[in-house]
């Protein structure tokens, strides 16, 4: 290239002592970026026009001046083989062959020349590839026409993917359009995707008319940004997972900051605890909410105060109970950073526990009642009756059983006095304690005292060397049944009286009295009152025993109890011997008619005898009849007639009396006929006739 006046820029100068106005005037007149300074006729250096405007004072010209000594210069006809060497210079001076400065070139002039020259491509390619930034040149159509390797690496694309491709496909379309439309440079645009993290500057390429002919996108690789982006992505995924996990957690999770403010919550909610939407409370201070009385105590406050895990049962003003566990979270400096609170509603648990307790209490009560009923039922299996008389006695026994009063059971032998005594034991609070029976008439008189009260060691010859605990002490807290109390010798009556009075016993040979807690049930078939009158029984003991006197009526006075008793004994027999023996209805009628002098015991024996001796499964009346001990007329005396009466009338009268007597005694016409030695039909017919006659007589009497 040969430099001539046509292709180099002229040098415009001012004196080194020029005023501001002169400098500005020159700059405005020539519109140049550089102004040279001379002293006389010698060029000293140059200044940048922008520096002058900024500095604004002539005195500063030298300060802003760049001396020519440091400026690269070439001779006018000199070939410049390596233009790229001049690229970094603002200004290159052109001298003539005489060495006089005749003009200058600006950097852009040099670059234009570089572009013009053939070798420019490799220079620019080298520049592009050597700088550690990505550069993309975009033409007016928005297509990428040049790029460097660093740029490709940063956007993670291959050459084929970029060349002539719309820049908007890779970079931000909006920014590109903005640069094209405004001609502005847009800097520091973050471009982050899961795989790419870059910072891009968008600079327009302007022509002389300031029209945008293209743009250059300078890209900086931001591996940290990329890493951050990826981490952010990971965090996003973690956050997503965490939310999913929290949403499945049963507990209500609260996150609180060190000031006690609620930061976030999960989706679980404790119904009725927060008096509204919990999300509305985000940002509120939980300690303040405690002060307002929403709940107490605040687990957040406790953790803030203690700086450690705290578990607490919180209660709202409406009585809702929550088990809250507060866990502190510390930062790397050991400072409290967060509090995570897990809360669980225990209101229902508490209520259920209380209900369970109530159920258990009821269950216990029912169990007790059931046991009582079972006892009664078990008792009813032994207490067979349906007569009102026994019903009345049983009601008394139920009452008596609840206390420790002494009971005197009277009644004929065999009426079941012992069964009633056991009923008193079973129905009362002493049922789990001993029931001891002693037959006062069966033990020799000289042994009875030691049996009742026990004896000390060596009390008498032949005694057990260890001593003996008497019945009274063995039955302590239980019931002692003294059967046949009427047989108790007078000498022991006084001792028994003392026990009943003092509630303590003194063993034979002992001097120390031992307290006993025993309920006494005495029984006798003898008339104790008569014995008292005759001096055979102590009156004071009689009254001491007869606190609750209960008389058990004989079976003949309660014939309605005979069938159930008979069935009961027969059933026992059948069960014991696996039989199926039954009683015929007329046999049962016969049993009801029998007077049972031996009472229940006799009935039991008769049933057993019948069951043993019968050949059939059905016990007939005949069979029973022969087993019963019917009272035979003691002497068959001949009827004595002392007056002379009409024969037929007398015969009719005697017949009527005989039939009525037989019916009264034997209840049925069959049995009456049998005893009278006539046919049943005859007895039945005559008995009906007698009844009609009596009814007519009564009617007649009523008329008169």
């Amino acid at each position, binding site marked *: 290239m040969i430099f001539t006046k046509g292709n180099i820029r002229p040098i415009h100068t001012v004196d080194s002592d020029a005023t501001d106005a002169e400098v500005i005037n020159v700059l405005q007149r020539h519109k140049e970026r550089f102004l040279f300074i001379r002293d006389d006729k010698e060029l000293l250096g140059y200044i940048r026009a922008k520096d002058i405007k900024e500095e604004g004072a002539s005195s500063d010209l030298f300060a802003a001046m760049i001396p020519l000594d440091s400026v690269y210069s070439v001779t006018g006809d000199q070939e410049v083989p390596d233009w790229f060497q001049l690229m970094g210079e603002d200004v290159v001076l052109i001298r003539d062959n005489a060495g006089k400065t005749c003009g200058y070139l600006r950097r852009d002039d040099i670059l234009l020349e570089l572009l013009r020259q053939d070798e420019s491509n490799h220079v620019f390619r080298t520049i592009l590839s050597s700088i550690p930034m990505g550069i993309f040149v975009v033409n007016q159509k928005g297509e990428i026409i040049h790029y460097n390797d660093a740029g490709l690496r940063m956007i993670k694309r291959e050459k084929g993917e970029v060349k002539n491709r719309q820049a908007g496909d890779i970079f931000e379309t909006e920014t590109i359009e903005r640069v094209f439309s405004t001609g502005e440079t847009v800097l520091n645009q973050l471009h982050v995707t899961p795989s790419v993290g870059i910072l891009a500057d968008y600079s327009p390429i302007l022509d002389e008319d300031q029209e945008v002919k293209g743009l250059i996108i300078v890209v900086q690789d931001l591996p940290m940004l990329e890493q951050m982006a990826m981490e952010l992505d990971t965090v996003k995924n973690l956050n997503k997972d965490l939310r999913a996990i929290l949403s499945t957690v049963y507990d209500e999770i609260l996150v609180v900051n060190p000031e006690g403010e609620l930061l976030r919550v999960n989706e679980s909610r404790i119904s009725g605890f927060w008096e509204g939407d919990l999300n509305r409370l985000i940002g509120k201070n939980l300690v303040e909410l405690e002060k307002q009385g929403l709940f107490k105590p605040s687990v957040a406050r*406790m953790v803030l105060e203690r700086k450690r895990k705290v*578990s*607490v049962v*919180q209660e709202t003003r409406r009585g809702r109970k929550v*088990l809250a566990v507060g866990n502190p979270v510390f930062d790397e400096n050991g400072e409290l950073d967060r509090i995570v609170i897990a809360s669980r509603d225990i209101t229902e648990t508490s209520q259920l526990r209380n209900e369970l307790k109530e159920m*258990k209490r009821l*269950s216990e009560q029912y169990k007790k009642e059931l046991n009582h009923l079972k006892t009664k039922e078990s008792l009813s299996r032994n207490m067979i009756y349906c007569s009102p008389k026994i019903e009345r006695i049983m009601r008394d026994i139920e009452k008596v059983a609840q206390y420790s009063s002494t009971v005197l059971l009277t009644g004929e032998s065999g009426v079941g006095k012992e069964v009633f005594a056991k009923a008193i034991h079973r129905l009362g609070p002493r049922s789990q304690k001993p029931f001891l029976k002693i037959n006062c008439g069966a033990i020799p008189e000289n042994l009875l005292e030691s049996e009742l009260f026990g004896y000390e060691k060596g009390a008498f010859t032949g005694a057990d060397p260890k001593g003996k605990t008497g019945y009274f002490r063995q039955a302590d807290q239980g019931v002692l049944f003294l059967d046949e109390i009427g047989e108790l010798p007078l000498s022991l009556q006084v001792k028994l009286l003392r026990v009943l009075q003092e509630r303590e016993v003194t063993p034979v040979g002992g001097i120390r009295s031992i307290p006993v807690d025993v309920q006494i049930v005495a029984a006798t078939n003898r008339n104790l009152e008569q014995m008292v009158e005759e001096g055979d029984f102590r009156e004071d003991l009689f009254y001491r025993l007869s606190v609750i006197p209960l008389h058990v009526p004989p079976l003949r006075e309660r014939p309605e109890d005979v069938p159930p008793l008979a069935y009961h004994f027969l059933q026992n027999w059948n069960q014991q011997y696996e039989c199926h023996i039954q009683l015929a209805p007329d046999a049962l009628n016969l049993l009801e008619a029998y007077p049972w002098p031996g009472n229940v015991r006799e009935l039991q024996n008769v049933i057993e005898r019948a069951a043993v001796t019968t050949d059939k499964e059905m016990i007939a009346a005949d069979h029973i009849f022969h087993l019963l001990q019917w009272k035979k007329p003691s002497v068959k005396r001949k009827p004595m007639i002392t007056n002379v009466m009409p024969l037929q009338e007398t015969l009719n009268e005697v017949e009527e009396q005989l039939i009525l007597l037989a019916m009264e005694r034997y209840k049925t016409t069959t049995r009456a006929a049998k005893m009278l030695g006539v046919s049943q039909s005859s007895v039945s017919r005559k008995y009906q006739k007698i009844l009609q006659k009596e009814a007519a007589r009564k009617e007649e009497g009523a008329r008169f």
Partner: protein
Amino acid sequence: MVIQSPIVSPCCGIIEKILCHTSVFQPKDSLFLIRTTDGELRKVTVDYSGTITSYEVRPGDEVFTGMVLAYSEEDLTAAENE
């Protein structure tokens, strides 16, 4: 059947002693001894039998009303059989 039950402090004070030396306890057993803020000693009991699964406090710890002292498992089956 077993249900989880927290054993809570009935008062404010300091844990003087842990009285339950085995994990199994019976109704009315004294489990903790607390010196209340008034200086009195107060025993903590429960009205059920069960097993302590974890202690949440140690002797010397300050406690307050409602604070969980321990977690227990209430054995309802055992109670039903009693």
